[in-house]
């Protein structure tokens, strides 16, 4: 309920902004909605969204699973941390453009290069967040697990993951949006389809309506995923917290 009211307020603000400014600079919700419908009818929206989502999903899964594993190791093992930390800092601060261009130059203008470049951009962020989580693990519970000879699986499932949950939540939320943004850049520089490609065309024409028509469906999708999937799941996973008092 509150969620809907808040969303309505946001749309209202947007409408207001469109009224007071030039509609060419900030087209209103209705105009954008029309444009979305038009793109949807032509099928272009779905095919582009589909391909972009596939890229987002692939690079996110790649970066997140690798990042979680490396981040956990770096958080737990001092030596690994010391060894990999400089690489991490470098990767973290290398401009996306550099990584993307190098990937395209080396691996060709291919799908693999695109997805790899995005994953490589997101990887250090996942590592950094999960590493902090791994460092903050409670050593008293760790000892308990050791005393009771927890299996590797049980340790992961019952000890580590629940403690990393908030870090995963943070890394996933900000990571998914980061991946989506980098996919847009990658598509802009060297792919022939996808939302980023369309957004760039709209941008070249300075067609804000079309630009928003391609940018917003993903936002709407994420809103839906948050409301219907992530937040109920999160509430379930964190239900033990209510009790702690």
């Amino acid at each position: 309920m509150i969620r809907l009211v808040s969303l309505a307020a946001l749309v209202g603000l947007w409408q207001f902004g469109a009224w007071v400014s030039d509609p060419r600079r900030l087209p209103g919700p209705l105009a954008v909605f029309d444009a979305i419908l038009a793109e949807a009818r032509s099928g272009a929206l779905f095919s582009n969204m589909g391909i972009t989502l596939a890229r987002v999903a692939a690079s996110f899964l790649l970066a997140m699973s690798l990042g979680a594993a490396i981040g956990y190791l770096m958080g737990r093992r001092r030596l690994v941390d010391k060894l990999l930390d400089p690489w991490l800092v470098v990767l973290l601060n290398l401009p996306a453009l550099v990584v993307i261009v190098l990937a395209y130059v080396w691996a060709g203008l291919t799908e693999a290069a695109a997805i790899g470049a995005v994953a490589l951009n997101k990887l250090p962020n996942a590592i950094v967040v999960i590493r902090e989580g791994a460092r903050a693990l409670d050593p008293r519970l760790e000892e308990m697990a050791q005393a009771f000879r927890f299996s590797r699986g049980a340790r992961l499932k019952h000890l580590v993951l629940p403690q990393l949950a908030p870090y995963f939540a943070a890394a996933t939320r900000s990571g998914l949006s980061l991946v989506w943004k980098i996919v847009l850049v990658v598509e802009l520089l060297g792919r022939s389809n996808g939302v980023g490609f369309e957004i760039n065309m709209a941008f070249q024409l300075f067609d804000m309506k079309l630009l928003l028509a391609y940018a917003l469906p993903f936002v709407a999708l994420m809103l839906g995923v948050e409301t219907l999937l992530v937040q109920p799941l999160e509430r379930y996973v964190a239900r033990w917290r209510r009790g702690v008092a």
Partner: protein
Amino acid sequence: EKLRLALQKTGTTGWELAVVRAFGLDKDAGLELEVTELAAPEAGKIAIQGGSADIIVSDWLWVARERAQGAKLALFPYSTGVGAVMTKDPAIRSVRDLAGKKLGVAGGPLDKSWLLLKAHALKQGVDLEKSATILYGAPPLIAEKALQGELDAALEFWNFAADLEGKGFTRAIEISDVEKALGAKGDVVITGYVFDDAFAAKNRDALARFFAMTSKAKALIASDDRAWAAAAQRIGPKDAATLAIYRKRYVAGVPKRSVAQEEADASALYRVLAEIGGEKLVGPGKTLDPGTFYKGGEAGAH
């Protein structure tokens, strides 16, 4: 009088400004130029939309599109420079030869040169999108890929084409020839100075002097080696042969015809583009808006 310009740093406008400064042409014209150098062509569009610049450089297709949507922008010819299909493959000499090849297209599917090439090919019964493998990408990346040999041919912007030419590529298909095949009478202006109608009305005189001044700079670059040296500094490190190609292509791109002639040819090409690019490209207008070309600057320019 003060004019605020927002220009791409790597563009040829920078050469001309270098010459203007070196020869004091701005003082002669009684103009004070405030130049914002930008990194990307789109940045200029942002600048003029946001009111941060009076004059930018863009193409008439975009101006017409904006006019069709209600923005009163106008354009004054700047350059006829267009790109070419570059290749190292001697077998490629016409659009027919592109069948089954990998063609890189700089700038993306809405690039004017690409659309014209596509229309031209269609007229000859070749659907390039079906018969060839098309790869879109950022211009520097496409040029590099052509050099790497990953592409059989590349449709490049004029300056990248010049670079490739310097590296042994041949100009297989000239887009200026394509323009003529599609109904143009000569080399058509593609880019121009773009400004607001209202601004033009208020600064008619200053604009005329500005155009005359840049025209003078163009002439100097063509004729005076000292001027060329000043301009070439803006290009960056290239070998002498490539520089020569740059100069040649630049001079070839200087508009030589009257605005009326340009407008007639542009209208012809506009119809072709509207047909192939559809509303997405040209917006709601079906024909070139008559106000697209600015008519008030010619007296001083030629």
